[in-house]
């Protein structure tokens, strides 16, 4: 264990691309070997990320996740409980971007379809909250309590 496995491959790929661009544009030939090394390290880390954790079985799912955008934690949004999140995920709404683009009426239909318990939840504020979450503007979002419900002041 070198600790290198904790470094995200996409981060190194990003650094490599910027580094390679600067070196090539400024024609800094003496730095080229380091560019090549950075590229090789990025490639190795990207492959490593697809590998299963020690002790875990090698699954095609793990390999699929290489370089893929991970689903967002929708329960960070006020009013979205884990049950609601599961219902949204089942409807292919897995990221803040997708939720931000979904109309409240559509969300209502998804909740109604998921069961009577969720049918009465008001999702009208979720798209706006999701857009804020996507931009990382967490301070402007409505706070949530432990159960995922909106906190009333």
């Amino acid at each position, binding site marked *: 264990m070198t600790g290198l496995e904790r470094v995200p491959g*996409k981060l190194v790929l990003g650094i490599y691309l910027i580094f390679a661009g600067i070196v090539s544009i400024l024609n800094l030939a003496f730095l080229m070997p380091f560019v090549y*090394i950075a590229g090789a390290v990025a490639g190795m880390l990207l492959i490593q990320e697809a590998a299963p954790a020690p002790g875990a079985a090698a699954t095609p799912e793990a390999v699929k996740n290489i370089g893929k955008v991970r689903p967002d934690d929708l329960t*960070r949004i006020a009013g979205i409980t884990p049950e609601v999140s599961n219902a949204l995920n089942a409807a292919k709404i897995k990221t803040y971007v997708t939720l931000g683009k979904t109309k409240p009426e559509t969300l209502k239909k998804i909740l109604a379809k998921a069961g009577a318990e969720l049918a009465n939840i008001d999702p009208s504020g979720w798209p706006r909250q999701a857009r804020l979450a996507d931009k990382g503007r967490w301070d402007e979002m409505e706070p949530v309590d432990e159960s995922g419900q909106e906190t009333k002041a």
Partner: protein
Amino acid sequence: MKSVGNFLLSVWLILEGLSGVIMPTDEGKINFFFAIPRFSLLKGVFPYLGLLAGAIILVQTINDIKNNRPMFLVALWAIAICVAELVGLLNTPFVYAVHLLGMGAGYFLLKEWQQAQKVSQVVGEK
């Protein structure tokens, strides 16, 4: 199928990286560590590998660019740089544009990582 593009991209990056440090350049100047002449026979295949990887990732990401913008740009960069190599456009202004594209992709990759760090911090504070 979804993992193939990323896997090929990784392999291509590793091979290109290795080729840069273990092979002599066309002018035979840089032998950074040591040279393996026979390895240079493989070099002709690398651009095709990068092209294939870029094309597969492009097809995978083009339907949801907003969610996959960094990898979409990486795919465009990989295709452009490989095409430049195949048609002999290296050391031309076109390649500068390609490098700028690569730097843009790199910027978005770093931004995505920064965003992920921010989210994990917030989740950790919860």
